[in-house]
């Protein structure tokens, strides 16, 4: 591929990533904001593909789009009736936050662009198969401990989510009964 093709692909993926992100922030309907997240996540998956991170393209689609986005949309639809689209969707920090975030992003972009990174294209990455095999070996070899820590984190989060989301139980009637019998005796 010529470098112009690659640049064009990068720029279109950048637009595909950033424009929906702006819409996520600015749209009034919260359900539309959830759906605008979809092209952003697809754009990031495309950027992973441009970076030759084959495994993470699939992981991004499976985990972010297939799990996290569906979870977010699920919660939005469960709670949709409280969101009045005519009510203000942004708090009063918005006048201060827009210049702050814009200047933060611009400043870090400026600093990162001026840093003398090694130029030139890196050598070709390994194929999808070899890369995934190497990653799997690393996860059960050198990096087994971080991998297990991530698993424990996920398990703890899932158990915590179940405990939090469980409907609050009414007072168990058994305690009262025990009290009554105790009083009679």
């Amino acid at each position, binding site marked *: 591929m010529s470098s112009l093709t690659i640049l064009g692909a990068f720029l279109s993926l950048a637009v595909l990533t*950033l424009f929906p992100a702006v819409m996520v922030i600015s749209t009034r309907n919260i359900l539309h904001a959830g759906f605008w997240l979809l092209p952003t996540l697809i754009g990031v998956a495309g950027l992973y593909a441009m*970076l030759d991170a084959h495994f993470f393209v699939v992981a991004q689609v499976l985990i972010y789009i297939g799990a996290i986005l569906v979870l977010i949309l699920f919660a939005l639809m469960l709670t949709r009736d*409280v969101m009045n689209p005519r009510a203000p969707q942004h708090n009063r920090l918005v006048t201060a936050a827009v210049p702050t975030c814009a200047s933060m992003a611009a400043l870090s972009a400026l600093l990162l662009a001026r840093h003398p990174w090694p130029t030139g294209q890196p050598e070709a990455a390994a194929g999808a198969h070899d890369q995934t095999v190497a990653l799997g070996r690393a996860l059960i070899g050198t990096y087994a401990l971080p991998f297990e820590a991530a698993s424990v984190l996920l398990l703890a989060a899932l158990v915590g989510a179940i405990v939090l989301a469980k409907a609050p139980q009414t007072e168990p009637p058994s305690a009262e009964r025990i009290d009554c019998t105790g009083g009679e005796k």
Partner: protein
Amino acid sequence: MTVGLSHYLILSAALFGLGALAAITRRNAVAVLMGVELMLNAANLNFLAFWRYLTPQGMEAQVFVIIGFTVAAAEAALGLAVVLNLYRDFGTLNVDEASGLKG
């Protein structure tokens, strides 16, 4: 002009800024979660860009991204459980209305 490391870094800086803006200014708790997801995506993009251009033989960046995915999934699950509780207790999802304490 070829696409270099700085292109990816600038893009992810912009994505991080947009995510931070969403997390700070949106009133809906789920939209705040969406902003956090955008920021996590920007961080993962940075990891993979550095991996590709600086250490293509190393495995550290990919392991970090896997942990980043795990953290994002855990954050989404826990955050939505909190959101459901918020809805049940306050009847609203606006984070500036759901204040149990004075002030």
